[in-house]
């Protein structure tokens, strides 16, 4: 009790000083787990816990942003990349404010980080983990993290998983992502350890095998009889749903209670199919390796909200990097605050993820937090804005005759794009259904072309995380 109070005070002082230490955050997360074990729920004012803030006061938000941006810019001055940028543009971190931030500091493109990751590492950092993105959008991007940062992410993850997702010691988590997604893997394992939950690192193996693992009885003391949680990417979930539907798996075969997906566009169509086949709710959030921990979460109305304590989020036009107007499609640009990020520092990092800027005042429960629409796709040019990937997935993933995960590509220009889709059997009926549904969704294609082989698509489809398939010896020794 006394130790908890001291840790919370230390965490608060850390925020004021602009540098969160891992120890108090770690202690807070472990105390939260103890509290939940003792009482079942947190006490009053749980919104005061790290990452749970619901700050509504505009003055406080402005002061928080001013302090965070200035401190992060100072920290960025200790990296080779920003040292040079600051020298060239005459930027003095002490003079930066939220008002002049966008005018003074240039956007950092993904290619800059990908091209020279070490140039973004602070001179004072103690790099520990080379985390790589999976690279499905143009090759892996390397981001270095320190041991302190990993500890901080584990603490924040524990708090968030315990409070928002209800993860408890009786749960067993299956991790069915590529082991290349190392930061996610390590964070998931660390938070499972802190909460006392079971952790099953399956990897991205053959979906048929994963289904068998998910259904396997465990019979362990203090644990649910089967795996209760599944972490995977949307495309891998799509692969699981495809196999489960084809092989006749039923919700009663599994003990799943919650499925968490992330890292790719996740359509409502896939969500409803996955919930039907697994009998568990499917949830998602927004996070990328580069901007950890400044991700976002969804309100009940489906807006994507960003807590103000972890980073500064902007929604910019992809062509000019000017602030997008309400209703426009924009790229998410994030500055993760140095209070939580001490190794790789990024200012105005262009994630490439497209969203629509919300129009009108918000009425949701998170209205005080910065918000945008759900992720629409990834910016790859005018076509990606004219026909966002989300719309295509909503169209294709709702059609059971289109194999999961869907493979498609767009050709032509933004005026009359052609949608090419890989299907098992090309029939006029299927084509008619897709055309009708496209019209219903307001998607205007120059045409839809069905191909019975993926290789026949005129352009190689975007790689998916589920393509990073791993081998397994599960079948070894079984004599049919």
């Amino acid at each position, binding site marked *: 009790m006394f130790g908890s109070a001291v840790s919370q005070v230390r965490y608060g002082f850390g925020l004021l000083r602009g540098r969160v230490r891992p120890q108090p955050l770690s202690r807070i997360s472990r105390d939260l787990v*103890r509290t939940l074990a003792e009482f*079942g729920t*947190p006490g009053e004012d749980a919104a*005061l816990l790290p990452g749970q803030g619901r700050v509504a006061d505009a003055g406080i938000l402005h002061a928080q942003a001013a302090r965070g941006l200035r401190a992060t810019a100072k920290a960025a001055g200790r990296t080779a990349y920003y040292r040079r940028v600051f020298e060239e543009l005459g930027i003095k971190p002490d003079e930066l404010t939220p008002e002049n931030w966008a005018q003074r500091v240039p956007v950092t493109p993904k290619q800059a980080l990908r091209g020279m990751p070490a140039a973004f590492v602070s001179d004072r950092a103690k790099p520990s983990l080379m985390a790589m993105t999976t690279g499905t959008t143009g090759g892996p991007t390397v981001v270095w993290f320190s041991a302190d940062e990993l500890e901080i992410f584990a603490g924040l993850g524990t708090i968030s998983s315990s409070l928002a997702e209800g993860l408890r010691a009786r749960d067993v988590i299956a991790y069915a992502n590529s082991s290349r997604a190392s930061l996610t893997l390590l964070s998931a394992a660390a938070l499972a350890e802190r909460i006392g939950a079971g952790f099953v690192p399956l990897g991205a193996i053959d979906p048929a095998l994963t289904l068998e693992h998910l259904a396997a009885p465990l*019979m362990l003391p203090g644990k649910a009889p089967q795996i209760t949680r599944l972490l995977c990417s949307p495309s891998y979930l799509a692969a699981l749903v495809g196999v489960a539907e084809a092989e006749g798996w*039923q919700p009663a*075969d599994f003990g799943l209670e919650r499925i968490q997906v992330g890292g790719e566009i996740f359509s409502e169509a896939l969500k409803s199919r996955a919930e039907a086949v697994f009998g568990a709710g499917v949830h998602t959030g927004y996070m990328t390796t580069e901007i950890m921990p400044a991700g976002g979460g969804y309100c009940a109305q489906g807006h994507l909200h960003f807590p103000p304590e972890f980073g500064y989020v902007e929604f910019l036009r992809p062509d000019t990097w000017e602030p997008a107007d309400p209703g426009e499609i924009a790229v998410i640009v994030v500055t993760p605050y140095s209070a939580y990020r001490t190794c790789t520092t990024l200012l105005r990092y262009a994630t490439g993820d497209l969203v629509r800027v919300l129009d009108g005042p918000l009425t949701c429960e998170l209205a005080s937090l910065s918000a945008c629409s759900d992720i629409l796709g990834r910016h790859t040019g005018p076509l990606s804005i004219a026909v966002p990937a989300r719309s295509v997935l909503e169209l294709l993933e709702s059609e059971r005759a289109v194999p999961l995960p869907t493979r498609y590509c767009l050709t032509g220009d933004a005026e009359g794009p052609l949608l090419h889709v890989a299907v098992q059997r090309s029939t006029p009926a299927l084509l008619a259904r897709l055309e009708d549904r496209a019209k219903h969704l307001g998607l205007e294609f120059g045409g839809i072309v069905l191909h019975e082989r993926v290789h026949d698509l005129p352009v190689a489809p975007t790689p998916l995380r589920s393509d990073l398939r791993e081998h397994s010896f599960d079948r070894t020794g079984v004599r049919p």
Partner: protein
Amino acid sequence: MNLTLPTFLAVVIYVALLLLLATIYLGRIDLPRPPIGVYLWSDIAVMSVVLIIAPLGYLALPTAAVAGIFGLVLAVALQFTLAPMLGGRRATLCALALCAATLVGWLIHQQGLTAVLSDLVLTIAVIGVANLWVQGGMRASHVAGLAGLLSGYDLVATSLTSLMDRFVSHVDGLPFAPMVVLSTTRPPVEIGLGDLLMVVLFPLAATKAFGRRAGQVAAYVAVITMAVIALMIWAGLLPPYSPLLAVLGPLIVAQYVFWRKRGHRERTVGQWRSGTSSTIPPDQPSPLDAALLVEPAEGRVTGAWFAIIDGAVVGEGTSPGLARRSAREAGHLDVPVVRQFWT
């Protein structure tokens, strides 16, 4: 203590009433708690150190400062104890009014009024603090550990040294002095705040940890112990200032050991509020044991997996998951044990 029969009865009745009120409060009032935090042994160690060092510190302070510290602490305790019943603002006003009245009584030299008001303040504070600790997750084992430690300390401070005598003299007649005064005779009949807290704390902790019966037993033990000690003082077998905790502490430890040996485990606050039994259920035969006893049918040691429920094979597959699915397809919705047979 300068005991007469009425004051003896007053001691017993006061303690019994205090326990009754504290128990009613425990059953009806949910005290607020911070977002995170449970009591750990490190907290008990800190509390023990503070309780042991505090009297020495108070002796070094002027009496007005001691009264001020206790007044402030008790005002806070009154506020949080009364707040769930009266609301925050009214509780604050009530706490300030009671403390102010006590102070005024002392300033105008109304010894009886000061004692009555101080007693009222202390009584409410003891009920609130004991409830705060127990509802805040303090375990019966923590209380037993604290009681065991303080029993030795009480013996040393009260009987083997003059520390408690000097402390009592130091705060005698002060408003908010940490002792309930049941008679203002000379010497007065008083019960120390620490004693009262432990008297109330363990029955509440035992109720939470082991159930209502354990709480009732703890309450009876506390009242009887108090009565016996008062009787012995009355009979001249014990000195007027006697260490109650030296007797009650070991009894608390003994009760804790008794309930644990009787097959009870401590309930968490969540389990107590949901009415979960503290009794450890008798060992049930594990479905794993039953599955290990199943013998394979002739020729079935193939490396295949078998789903077993209640000792019977209900499904079969090339993997644990497929065996479970096979059982479900055969109409068995319960999760089976899966195993392979080997030679």
